């Protein structure tokens, strides 16, 4: 009897809000292998194509007075360049290409995911975890390469009283290893939550009495999501810079 009640509650919505995150093979049916072309592969390829179009094709003319596409790519380049210089310092600029790549990939994946019927690749923790683990490994390796064992000084806060230092060291170690987790979950969680909220309101639009309110809410949340898509890419890039600064200057 309880089963019957549960089944009735679940059929209330026209579709499930999490259905949009299902990874499907693009051609035919069947299980997803590592080599299967899925909707994730497709939208990632589209992301790369868009970046290529903006940064390579857009910059091809190299005009002194830039056109529209060239202005956008120059703006993006200057924006990230300034951010890396401000946050990670002058010697952080060696890693500017990496941070630029991360930012462009995430920002384009987020914006493409906002198109109707699109698939948001960054809403999957599997995708963002790879990006975050790459950042974590890079930063740790750079730290050990530049400072040797002196990099461990990042955990030993020499400005704190001596009694407190072991406790602080423990907290610092924990917070250091939680970084890839929070770094990846922040992006994936934000994208997933936003898109799920839009879908929940979209399902409410089928109910006549609240349909106008629901459509208004979708519009408002969509506008918020456009903002969030940019801010999350920016935050991902800026946190990479912060971690990089820690690796380059571990003594604080």
């Amino acid at each position, binding site marked *: *009897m309880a*089963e019957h009640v*549960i089944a009735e509650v679940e059929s209330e919505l026209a579709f499930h809000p999490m259905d949009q995150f299902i990874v499907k093979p693009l051609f035919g049916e069947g299980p997803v292998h590592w080599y299967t072309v899925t909707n994730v592969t497709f939208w990632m390829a589209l992301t790369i194509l868009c970046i290529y179009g903006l940064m390579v094709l857009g910059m091809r003319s190299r005009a002194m007075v830039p056109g529209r596409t060239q202005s956008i790519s120059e703006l993006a380049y200057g924006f990230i360049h300034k951010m890396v210089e401000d946050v990670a310092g002058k010697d952080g600029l060696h890693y500017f290409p990496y941070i630029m790549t991360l930012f462009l990939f995430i920002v384009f994946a987020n914006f493409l995911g906002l198109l109707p019927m699109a698939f948001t690749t960054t809403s999957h923790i599997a995708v963002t975890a790879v990006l975050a683990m790459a950042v974590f490994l890079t930063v740790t390796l750079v730290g050990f390469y530049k400072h040797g064992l002196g990099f461990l000084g990042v955990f030993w806060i020499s400005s704190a009283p001596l009694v407190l230092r072991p406790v602080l060291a423990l907290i610092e170690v924990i917070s250091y290893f939680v970084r890839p987790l*929070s770094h990846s*979950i*922040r992006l994936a969680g*934000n994208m*997933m939550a936003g898109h799920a909220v839009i879908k929940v309101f979209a399902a409410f639009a089928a109910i006549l009495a609240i349909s106008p309110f629901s459509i208004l809410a979708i519009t408002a949340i969509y506008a918020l999501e456009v903002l969030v898509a940019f801010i999350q890419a920016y*935050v991902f890039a*800026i946190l990479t810079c912060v971690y990089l600064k820690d690796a380059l200057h571990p003594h604080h």
Partner: protein
Amino acid sequence: MNGEITIAGPELIKMGAYIGAGLACTGMGGAAVGVGHVVGNFLSGALRNPSAAGGQTATMFIGIAFAEALGIFSFLVALLLMFAV
């Protein structure tokens, strides 16, 4: 049985998981307070000294990101309870 509903075993676990998922959403309130606190303090500082505000927007976003991450963790807990338990 005459209108009586018995809940046991996996259904009880499912029920507990859904209640827990709902309770996990209270964590969002904490994140909201945290983000509001960061932005509010940034704004009150920025209005006192507008010339220094431009250089500190990046710091504000870092603060927002750290405060928000913990709210996202509660969302993650809710998702785990809904789909993984």
